[in-house]
């Protein structure tokens, strides 16, 4: 890219650059610095003390566990959905394709309410499930369900475009040579879309780490059982324990930031492979 664009005059270029950077500094860097300063103010050992608090630790563990379960289901179902949507046309396939982004549009709090209305213990379906010993709402399955709803589009929307790009002649060649559809998928198609699947799964995981609106309604927020890390942070803020809130915030933020960097790395590698081969 040329350093000087004719569409932007020199003073205009400098002006835009300064405005953009100052804006980012004010709206993103400044709040972030305040959090980091607060979280690390009393040293790393104080940070670890806060994390070692049994309720905080259980909350972090639950957040990671539910996010992992969600990511596994999302990876399988998201890949399958993307594959079906790209390769097959059937009654309702267009409708399904336009509904994929629905969870992005619906406020997460509303998602939580929807799930309570459907699976709540006093509801028809909820009572039916409860009679069979399955508790969804105010239990861990409810958290996973909420996360699955909220992150539904991630894997699908990253895999779809890559699947569309794939040259299908390779698949057809494998097929003609006698490979079964399964073998063709696992040896030709899957390797080509693995980086996209990984990207989608990691993004959904990062999103799940911070989820609050749907979980606060669905989970019941019982310490050591259904209290997730973001809800724990909220509780600490409410009870004026800024130190506890700060420590867990720093941990969550570090985790999602590391994930985002990893996603960047995966995508960059994918880009390079693309050019070279």
């Amino acid at each position, binding site marked *: 890219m040329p350093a000087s664009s004719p569409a932007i005059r020199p003073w205009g270029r400098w002006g835009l650059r300064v405005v953009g950077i100052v804006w980012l500094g004010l709206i993103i860097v400044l709040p972030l610095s305040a959090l980091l300063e607060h979280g690390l103010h009393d040293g790393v050992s104080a940070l670890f003390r806060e994390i070692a608090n049994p309720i905080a630790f259980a909350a972090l563990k639950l957040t990671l566990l539910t996010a992992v379960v969600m990511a596994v289901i999302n990876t399988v179902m998201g890949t399958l959905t993307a594959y079906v949507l790209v390769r097959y046309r059937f009654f309702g396939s267009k409708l399904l394709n336009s509904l994929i982004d629905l969870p992005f549009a619906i406020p997460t709090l509303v998602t939580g309410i929807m799930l309570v*209305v459907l699976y709540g213990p006093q509801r028809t379906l909820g009572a039916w499930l409860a009679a069979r010993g399955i508790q969804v709402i105010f239990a861990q399955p409810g958290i996973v369900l909420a996360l699955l709803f909220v992150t539904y589009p991630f894997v699908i929307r990253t895999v779809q475009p890559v699947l569309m790009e794939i040259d299908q002649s390779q698949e057809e060649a494998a097929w003609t040579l006698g490979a079964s559809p399964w073998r063709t998928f696992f040896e030709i198609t899957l390797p080509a879309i693995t980086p996209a699947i990984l990207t989608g799964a990691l993004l959904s995981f990062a999103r799940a780490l911070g989820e609050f*609106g749907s979980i606060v309604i669905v989970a019941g927020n019982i310490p050591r059982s259904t209290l997730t890390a973001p809800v724990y942070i909220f509780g600490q803020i409410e009870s004026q324990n800024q130190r506890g809130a700060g420590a867990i915030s720093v941990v969550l933020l570090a985790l999602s930031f590391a994930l985002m960097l990893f996603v960047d790395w995966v995508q960059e590698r994918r880009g390079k492979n693309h050019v070279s081969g």
Partner: protein
Amino acid sequence: MSQVETGDKTQIATAPRSRVVRPTGAAWILVIIVVLYAAVLLGGPLLAIIWGAASSGLKAMVRELTSAEAINALKLTIILSLSATIINTVFGLILALVLARDDFKGKRIVNGLIDLPFAVSPVIAGFMLMLLFGRQGWFTATIDALNVRVVFALPGMLLATIFISSPFVVREVLPVLRHLGEDQEKVAYTMGAGYWRTFRQITLSNIRWGLLYGILLTFSRALGEFGAVLVVGGGVTRLTETSTLFIYRALDDRNEVGAYAMALILAIISFSLLLVMEYARKHSRKD
């Protein structure tokens, strides 16, 4: 999230579309699994909220929604979302232009920072603002001296909404700008159109659908924001209570009808926005 969607558009426009066929044999099983999963995960809850709201009766719902609190909450949500969207559109466009047409040291860092709100839990976003403007915050003394309230007041809620919805316009417009390149802009400029005219008539007109998509994403994200405004705003009835905070309080008060009615309204607004977004996205691909 928009990362997920932005990369595609240019690729879809240029790549040969893969063959789409009718499913046969075993493929039907895959189709059925996918459709059932979507129906249970998305369709079930959607029908449930409609059913839940309907079973509480239209009259009761209308009464809840026409209460002073509900109308205030909806108004506040719209005001906050519109303001945040306008501000994020202006600065998002500037950032997209800078990233696409300018080159400088640290550009990668700027690019990475833009996505940061995607990685931050809304609760943490609200907490950060408390650390800046709340008790013993970095700027508390300054704003106190100026007699401005930020925390538990509208300015704080606006800042929270801006933060949460800031990446969308940049992330939607940037790939379109990169894909377009500078040729048309160069031609217009060489032919004597000024910077401003080039921007309006060439750049802006070329990115309009991508920009619209980004604006709608921003608005829809701002509309549904809950965690951050809950922490910063405190949900003071009639003063700092947005629609989502209204729902949260209604649930707490065991006012189910009010909660369902407002949830349904928000769901309907989001759903309509989604339809317009699909339209914008299709056009954005064609460009």
